[in-house]
Every structure is written in structure tokens, then in C-alpha cells.
């Protein structure tokens, strides 16, 4: 079982991902905004942080960079999707250079669970 922080501004998406993770036995804290996510991450230990990279309120790319700049932080998964008219591919490849894994929406539950377990297995 892992402690997972999930950041996504789209409630239905977040709900589905959280439900999938919980069913697989993980503990999930949800938030809808990158800045709030960083605050929560500063107060609590997480094994893994999953963040959407395109949210209107805060740029998920910043979240990935902030989390990965400190050296030994939690593992980070960047998700693409959301936003409108933005070059998703660019944002994703930018984040991918820092994140530990990348998930492109729509992804299956199996892919999500595999990604989580491969990152947290040791």
C-alpha cells in the first residue's frame, strides 16, 4: 500500500483515478490545484505524486519541476490531457524530462496500476 497524492482539476477524472487506486489498496489524498498540492506535499510524506500537467489555475509542469528539484523527493507521475488549445505534446515532453513516468489520457486502469507499482516496488 502506498501513500499517493493526486492532483487534477477535473473532478470526474480525479474521482475515477482515485477510485481505481483505492480499490488497488492505496491511500489517496486528492486535490484540484497544483499550489494546494505542493502545500500538502510539504506537510506530509508521500510515496508517489500523480499530477495532471495542464490545469487552468496552476501549471502542472511547475509542480513537476518543484517536486523534482529537491533531489530525494517522492516519485512523480505526469498526466497529459485537459486544457484547450495548448500544445499538450510540448508540455508533456517538458514534464517527461523530469517526471518518473508519464501517463497519456485516456489510459486504462491496468496501465495506471502497473505504473504505480513499478515506481513504488522498491
Amino acid at each position, binding site marked *: 500500500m502506498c501513500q499517493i497524492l493526486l492532483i487534477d482539476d477535473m473532478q470526474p477524472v480525479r474521482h475515477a483515478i482515485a477510485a*481505481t487506486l483505492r480499490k488497488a489498496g492505496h491511500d489517496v489524498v486528492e486535490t484540484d490545484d497544483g499550489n494546494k498540492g505542493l502545500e500538502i506535499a510539504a506537510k506530509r510524506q508521500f510515496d508517489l505524486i500523480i499530477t495532471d500537467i495542464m490545469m487552468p489555475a496552476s501549471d502542472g509542469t511547475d509542480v513537476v519541476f518543484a517536486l523534482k528539484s529537491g533531489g530525494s523527493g517522492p516519485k512523480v507521475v505526469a498526466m497529459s490531457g485537459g486544457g484547450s488549445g*495548448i*500544445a499538450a505534446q510540448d508540455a508533456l515532453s517538458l514534464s517527461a524530462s523530469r517526471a518518473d513516468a508519464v501517463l497519456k489520457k*485516456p489510459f486504462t486502469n491496468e496501465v495506471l496500476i502497473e505504473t504505480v507499482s513499478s515506481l513504488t516496488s522498491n
Partner: protein
Amino acid sequence: MQKRLDQGYAALERIADDSPDLLKSLLEGSPDTVSVSDARLPDLPLTYVNPSFTRTTGYSADEVLGRNCRFLQGEDTNRGDVAKIRKAIEARQPVDVVLLNYRKSGEPFINSLRMAPIFDKSSQLSAYLGIQRDITEERLQAERNIGQNRLEALGTASGALAHQLNNLLHPVTSLISLHLPDIEDAGIRKDLEMAHYSANQAADLSDNLLGLSRGSFQDSSDITTLPAGLIRAVDLVRLMLPPTITIETSFRNISGELNVPINETLFAQVLINIITNASQATKHSGKIRIEVAEHDSSRVKISISDNGPGIPPSLREKVFSPFYSKSNSKNSSGLGLSVALQIINKVDGQIIVEDGLIQPNGDGFGCMFIIDIPNIT
């Protein structure tokens, strides 16, 4: 008005006195065409054309003097445009008309004609002045730009749409598959599986949209990779045409990836123009088959065949003329195939027209356009 006229005449008279030939040299040397008809003679025969007229039309002065200028018109000249000129002449008014004309060689060109009655100093109608400009190249260039902008806008819009769709579809597929194993009632499970299947199909469609936007139509590379670039263009065309048209592709005749020396946006524009034309030919209810063949190591042939009414061999050259297809469709510019040929010619390619697929009634053949371009794999 009269004062200005007088001043103008006075200046010209000074020129005529000082350097008697200058006015003639001006007309002869003008980069714009100048043609003059005598307004006092029946049917307005040409009395003067300058060298620029000869260069543009291919006719020498002695071939045209004494004739009415309508010899530049031909089969596909729009009669409404001609009527506009006729009405202006009847009303003794100037007129600007853009119409299809033909050079002596038979080659069509888009002529931007300005024609005006010329009144002498005592206000008597004495002549008509015609200034012609060949704007074919400009028009084709503009058409190419419009096509390119449209594709880029479509790429951006479809990318945005795909991302929103993906976000909406994720919970649908994810939540259904999450809870499906817990459903005991086989009937309900079956229904949910159906819903899941549909959501996956929608996700695939959305992925196609994303493929369109993925930078491919915005890049500036002068290489298109086949079949990927072709598949993207065909996906796009499918979205643009009614679902009643069937489009098949076959890449059996190529061994692997091929590179052709053309920017993907332009390549897509060529395909869109030809496929749209083919679809129109079948009244959007026929079949279009697209194949790629590696002709030899140096050329690639992309064929687009339809099972429409076909084009008789004698007219096959003509379909590339500007406005040739305009009569077939209200909302086409009439320049689609001209633009396609021009783009392909620029990369050392050609487009050949042959018999296409057999018609549904088995009587004859539709049309096949073969794009033959260099292979730079």
C-alpha cells in the same frame, strides 16, 4: 475638373513637343498591358495593343488588330463575367472584371481586366482602354495559403477538442472497467461492456483527432513520411466529407516507410483537393481507393481512384485548368486541382489521370489521379 484636364493635356502637349516619341514609348514600354479599341467602329475592334499584351496573351499585334478582344475568351469563361463587360460598354462605364481567358497556346489564365471608356477633350466617346493583368499565379498562391491556414487552424482546434474529449472519456472507461468485475447480473454486465466498448471507440476517434494536431501540420520540414503522413491526411479528409463516401487505403505495395520531399501540410492539401474532387464526382456516395506504390527506388506513386462518372481521355489535361471544376460545385473555389498540380510540380512531381475503379453499374470506369513524386527514403 476641367482645369485639371487642361493641365493634364498641357503637360502632355509639352511632352509631345519636347520629345515627340515619349508618349508612344510609354505605351510600348508599359509593364502593364494596354489595349485600345476604336469606339466609333462597329464591334469595337482593337486598334492598338502593346508588347506587354503580346507577352501575356501570346498573340502578336497583327494577329489581333481589327478584331474584338473576345477572342481571349473560351469554353470555361464565365458568361456572367462577359455580360458584365458588355453591360459596362453599353452604359459607357468603366468596369473591373476577373475572368478566365486563354492564351494563343490554349493555356488558360486568370485575367484581371480593367476596362474604361475614353472620352476626348470635347467629351466624345472615342476609344475603350483595356488593361489586363495575369493574376493566375497570385490566385493559386492565395489558394495555397488559405488551404494551409485552414489546416493549421483545424490542427489546433482538433487538438483542443481531443484533449477535452479525453478528459471526459477517461472517467467513463475507467469507472466502468473498475466496477464491471463486481457486477453479478450477466445482463447488466453485457450492457456495461457495450458502453465500455463505445467509450473506447470514442477514445480511438479522439486519438485520431490528436494525431492531426500533433504538430504535423505546423511543422516546416520539407519531408513527409509515408504512409503515416498519408494516413493523417486521409483521417482529416474523412472528417471533412459526408460519411456516405467510402474511402479505402492500401499500402501493400510498399516495403516500409517512405520519404517524399514535400512539406506535410502541402501534401495534405494536395490529397484533400484530389479526394474532395473525387468525392464530388461520385456525388459523395461512391468509393475512393488510395494506394501507394514504390515505383522504383527513385519514385513513389500515390493513386486516388474513384468509381464516379470518369473523365474522357480528351479532357484529362483540362481538369487542372483553373475554374474547370467550378461548375461542378458551388462551394469549391475551382482551383483545387490547379493548386494540387502546382504543388506537386514544384517538387519535381507530376499528376497523371487514368481510368479508375469500375462504376457501380459495371458500364465504365471512374477516374484515377496518380501522384508521381521523387522517393528520397
